[in-house]
């Protein structure tokens, strides 16, 4: 597989698609019985039996306007392992239904999960070519890699390349951008802030809220620092002066601070004071309890007549 496409199309992916694929995969995985094992744990008949994570398949739909392909939505499909193809009649029925609701959407391609595109995928890809001459293949990598910063989603196109004298269709990777509608932004935000089951108590909610604000401010701070560093370098003459960037920086600076009014100051200071008072109260309670214990210990150790005598009653 080559690493970059030359078709010149720009791809825009909506987060709904990503969330849907992830949801599909998670559902299937948690419904399989027994749950998939790791590779070295079972040997059956002398053959190493490796249960892999299940692969899910589906179709992506969207709009193509000129050179821009926008992927809006997707739906699931059943994979038939015997014929190595997707369930065709079901696909056509779904296509009809979606056409009724979204008349502008066309089937743009299909999706699956896995770490890398495989040879068998080309089979499915070719099967879809009668619906769309150049279908897309959206691949989601479900393994969680904490070091990875980007989304584990790749979009592949098919191109005809000559390899060893034989023209073959191979997958080439394409770049894409994420495009959001307002409604999607709200739901993605909501999903991002989902906490485990005990997230209901007020303390964790407050902590989560403040943590979110803290990370947002930290990111803003680091970005501004980068800009500052860049401008200082430009001033010193290490970096060539670029007027367009300077204009952008200047317009950004004129937009900050975002709100400047007296009511905002009042409310902001009041909220700041409230948070400080809460911290103060918490510290006070902490300190008082330590002091109480200390006094009790001191009285036990040094005061002859302090205890009311006798043992504590047993249960």
């Amino acid at each position: 597989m080559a690493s970059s496409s030359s078709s010149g199309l720009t791809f825009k992916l909506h987060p709904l698609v990503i969330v849907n694929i992830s949801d599909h995969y998670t559902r299937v995985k948690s419904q399989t019985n027994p749950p998939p094992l790791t590779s070295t744990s079972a040997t059956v008949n002398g053959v190493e039996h490796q249960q892999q994570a299940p692969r899910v398949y589906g179709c992506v739909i969207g709009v193509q306007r000129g050179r821009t392909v926008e992927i809006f939505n997707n739906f699931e499909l059943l994979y038939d392992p015997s014929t190595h193809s997707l369930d065709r009649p079901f696909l056509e029925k779904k296509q009809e239904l979606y056409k009724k609701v979204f008349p502008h959407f066309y089937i743009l391609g299909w999706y699956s999960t896995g770490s890398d595109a495989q040879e068998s995928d080309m089979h499915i890809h070719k099967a879809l070519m009668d619906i769309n001459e150049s279908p897309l293949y959206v691949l989601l990598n479900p393994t969680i890699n904490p070091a990875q910063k980007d989304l584990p989603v790749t979009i592949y196109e098919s191109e005809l390349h000559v390899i060893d004298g034989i023209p073959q269709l191979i997958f080439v990777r394409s770049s894409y951008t994420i495009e959001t509608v307002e409604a999607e932004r709200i739901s993605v935000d909501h999903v991002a802030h989902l906490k485990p089951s005990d997230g209901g108590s007020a303390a964790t909610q407050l902590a989560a809220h403040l943590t979110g604000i803290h990370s947002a401010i930290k990111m803003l701070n680091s970005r501004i620092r980068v800009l500052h560093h860049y401008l200082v370098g430009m001033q010193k003459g290490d970096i060539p002066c670029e007027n367009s960037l300077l204009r952008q920086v200047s317009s950004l600076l004129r937009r900050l601070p975002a709100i400047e009014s007296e009511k905002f100051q009042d409310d902001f200071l009041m909220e700041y004071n409230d948070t400080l008072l809460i911290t103060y109260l918490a510290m006070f309670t902490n300190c008082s309890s330590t002091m109480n214990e200390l006094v009790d210990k001191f009285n036990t150790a040094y005061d002859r007549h302090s205890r009311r005598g006798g043992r504590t009653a047993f249960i």
Partner: protein
Amino acid sequence: MEGLVTQIQGLSGTASDVLSLQNLLKQADDSLHAESTRLPPFLDQLDPSKHSLGYLYFLEACTAGPVTQEQASSFVLTIARFISSCVAEQIRLAPDKFISVCKRFKDQVLLLEEPLRGVAPMLTAIRKLQLSSEHLTALHPEFLLLCLLSKCYKTALSILDEDIFEVDQPRDLFLYCYYGGMISIGQKQFRKALELLHNVVTAPMSTVNAIAVEAFKKYILVSLIHHGQFPTNLPKYASSGAQRNLKTLCQPYVELASSYSNGKIADLETYVEANKDKFESDNNLGLVKQAVSSMYKRNIQRLTQTYLTLSLQDIANRVQLNSPKEAEMHVLQMIKDGEIYATINQKDGMVRFLEDPEQYKTCEMIERIGSSIQRLMTVSKKLNVMDELMSCDPLYLAKAGRERQRFDFDDFDNVPPRYNI
């Protein structure tokens, strides 16, 4: 003697030399004391800023014996000069000698009846002897005594503002807090006075001592002036000896407090008149009078909790003042001191009581709370350290072990035994 002088001059250079010098001086101490009359001329050969340790030993031996009035003034000068020019590290090697020199200095200054001369040198002496600003030395109470006698309270306030975390001798703490309380009363800083006197009364003491009794009397009076009430029980961190005995020893004051809480000024004044001599013998009559006058303030404050507006005439009647003019003066004073929030409408003589206008919206409030949080954090750290120390204290462990339950849950039989009645 001359040999000793040359040794001092030679060995005052580096820290290790000074340590060996100290050993020499310790051995020579008795001979120094024996020849105390011959010593003054040798003092001139030594430089206090370089040979502080040696000078200290010589000075201590010089002043050991009884001192006449004429000698006193020259000694006062020498000691003052020494204190201002000596080196702190060298003196800290022989702290008790330094303390005894300073105490004799104080005695001589008092002998000359010029306590003011002793205030500044004593302050420098404290600063040089202290290991840190949280350390209470034996010189602190002497300093406060000099300030009290010379009536320069302001210098004392700078020392009183520092928080104390380490104490050398308990008696120092008692005296320090007692004098500090008196100075704060003199400066009308009743909150600080209350805090210091509270420290004396609740400090750990195995038997009740006289300082605590005197402090308790003042404590009752100051708490009446400042808070308008006196808590009848000492907090649980006061020693049990104090809790049981202090009240019986200060009976007239406790009765004064109970009649104060009834709220009737006339009763209070008759009681004060009846026990005037007792109060006077304790030098507390001025405080008692202040307590009586604070009764008016207390009653006016009580009015703010019941009424929104009140006329000046009504206030005068309820608080048993003589005229609306007096009431107006009292209310005005209280508004100025920040004790109540009110506005006086002069046209119809009505007073309107308001709420606390603090909105907690300002940057100053942020700074105040921020600094309070910082202070609280340091206190919390210190408390944790103390708590750990206390948990490892063998006395505590011995007694805590005794109170533990002897029996485990498993030792119990679920079926109760049959009793033969």
